[in-house]
């Protein structure tokens, strides 16, 4: 595929040039900037007609919730979507990049993209960065060869699974899957199970929260159900309202007129110095 050759960087791989300088700075006490992480619950499962992906919507920056309603299910191709956990910038950048590569590839071949293509592009990129690109992904889609679901780890290894969970809430979600998953689920059963698994992550893991996003991919069709469930509504709203009154209250008024400026001309020699 000569078209893809142009996208491979000239030197290839991670440039270790700045590592020594970074280590020196850290030893001198410099704290590296903390990055926006998606402490997350992301899941995927295969049902009888295709793949269902699910994700929560909380993005954290240390202990603070930076974004209450972010989108963790990324578009790769019309028939392939990818959920991302880890550093938000890394998941965004890597999925955007591979999405563009897939589009160029579709123009070149004239065919629908395959999930294994996206898988190979993602894993070879992540491996060449030796785990420094902190993106843990759940990739799912339906192509001519059928429905596929894969997990991709930051160091570049992949798994092919009937059901998968990633992120800090993965254990809570996996507990639901391991006890309730079976083969040949219908669409509604699958969506319900995915929503249950994400809710388990939202309510039992501190890094996950807010709402549930779901994406259902079948042959020839995809449904992106943004904010499918909103289990954390804002229940208390102050009746007094949250706007401040525009006027400032006047307590009392006092007017002091300016005095006339009177020039005093001194008798005697001015400018004598």
């Amino acid at each position, binding site marked *: 595929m000569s078209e893809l050759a142009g996208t491979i960087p000239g030197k290839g791989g991670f440039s270790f040039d700045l590592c020594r300088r970074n280590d020196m700075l850290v030893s001198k006490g410099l704290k590296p900037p903390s990055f926006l992480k998606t402490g997350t619950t992301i899941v995927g499962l295969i049902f009888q007609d295709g793949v269902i992906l699910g994700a929560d919507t909380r993005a954290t920056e240390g202990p603070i919730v930076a974004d209450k309603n972010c989108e963790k299910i990324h578009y790769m191709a019309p028939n392939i979507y990818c959920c991302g956990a880890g550093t938000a910038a890394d998941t965004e950048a890597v999925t955007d990049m591979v999405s563009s590569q897939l589009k160029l590839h579709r123009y070149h071949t004239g065919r629908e993209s395959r999930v294994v293509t996206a898988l190979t592009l993602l894993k070879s990129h992540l491996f060449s960065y030796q785990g420094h690109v902190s993106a843990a992904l759940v990739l799912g889609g339906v192509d001519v060869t*059928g429905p596929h679901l894969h997990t991709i780890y930051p160091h570049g290894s*992949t798994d092919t699974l009937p059901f998968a969970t990633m992120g800090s809430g993965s254990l809570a979600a996996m507990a639901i899957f391991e006890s309730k998953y079976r083969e040949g689920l219908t669409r509604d059963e699958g969506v319900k199970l995915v929503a249950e698994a994400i809710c388990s992550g939202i309510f039992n893991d501190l890094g996950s929260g807010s709402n549930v996003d779901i994406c259902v991919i079948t042959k020839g069709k995809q449904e992106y159900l943004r904010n499918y469930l909103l289990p954390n509504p804002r229940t208390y709203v102050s009746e007094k309202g949250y706007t401040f009154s525009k006027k400032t209250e006047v307590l009392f008024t006092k007017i002091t007129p300016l005095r006339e400026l009177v020039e005093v001309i001194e008798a005697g020699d001015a400018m004598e110095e």
Partner: protein
Amino acid sequence: MNVSDSTPAMNNLMGSEADSQRTLYPYVTGTSVVGIKYKDGILLAADMGGSYGSTLRYKTVERLKSVGKHSIIGASGEISDFQEIMRNLDDLILYDNMWDDGNSFGPKEVHNYLTRMMYNRRNKFNPLWNSLVLGGVKNGQKYLGTVSMIGVHYEDNHVATGFGNHLARPLLRDEWHENLTFEEGVKLLEKCMRVLLYRDRSAVNKLQIAKITEEGVTISQPYALKTFWGFSAFKNPTAGAEGSW
């Protein structure tokens, strides 16, 4: 709290004489214990594995024991420390019996004693490396509590130690309710233990379930859970994705 992954060899390379007098890391460890309240009393479940670092060395370790007439205790973490705790508890119950005053220690008293013991040891930088689950029934009152190795203690309708907190608690929060029958309770515990068996590397497929009601304590014989590995995706996992697994 991660109680696995210790290398016994490291010990001799570290520090002074004083270090050999206190617990620095666990050696033989038990994994999760899960406990729930049900209609007639308390149910505890634990497997029978004792891991030596990353080896599953002992497979018939009884981690559920009865304490006096009214309580049962389940322990995860260092097995030798659990044996020490049992010695202390047995002495405690013995001296209580010797009063011969018709009164006997209930689960609340035992839980409190354990909390004080664990916290006291932690303050001396020499902890008993265990997470304990204590359950019992006295005078119709059900009690289920837990103590960790640093003395954190609380009681709840369902508790778990170690990995059980991450894998079993979410299931219990969803599916536990008051008035579970014995069969429903056992089924729920088995569901949790099955997920732990699939996803905890130090779990073994040999477990015991302990029941305590007003009538007394029963600890079941060891048995194994049925597992399912027949997913079609497991049969040929790299079909279409050569090079992965």
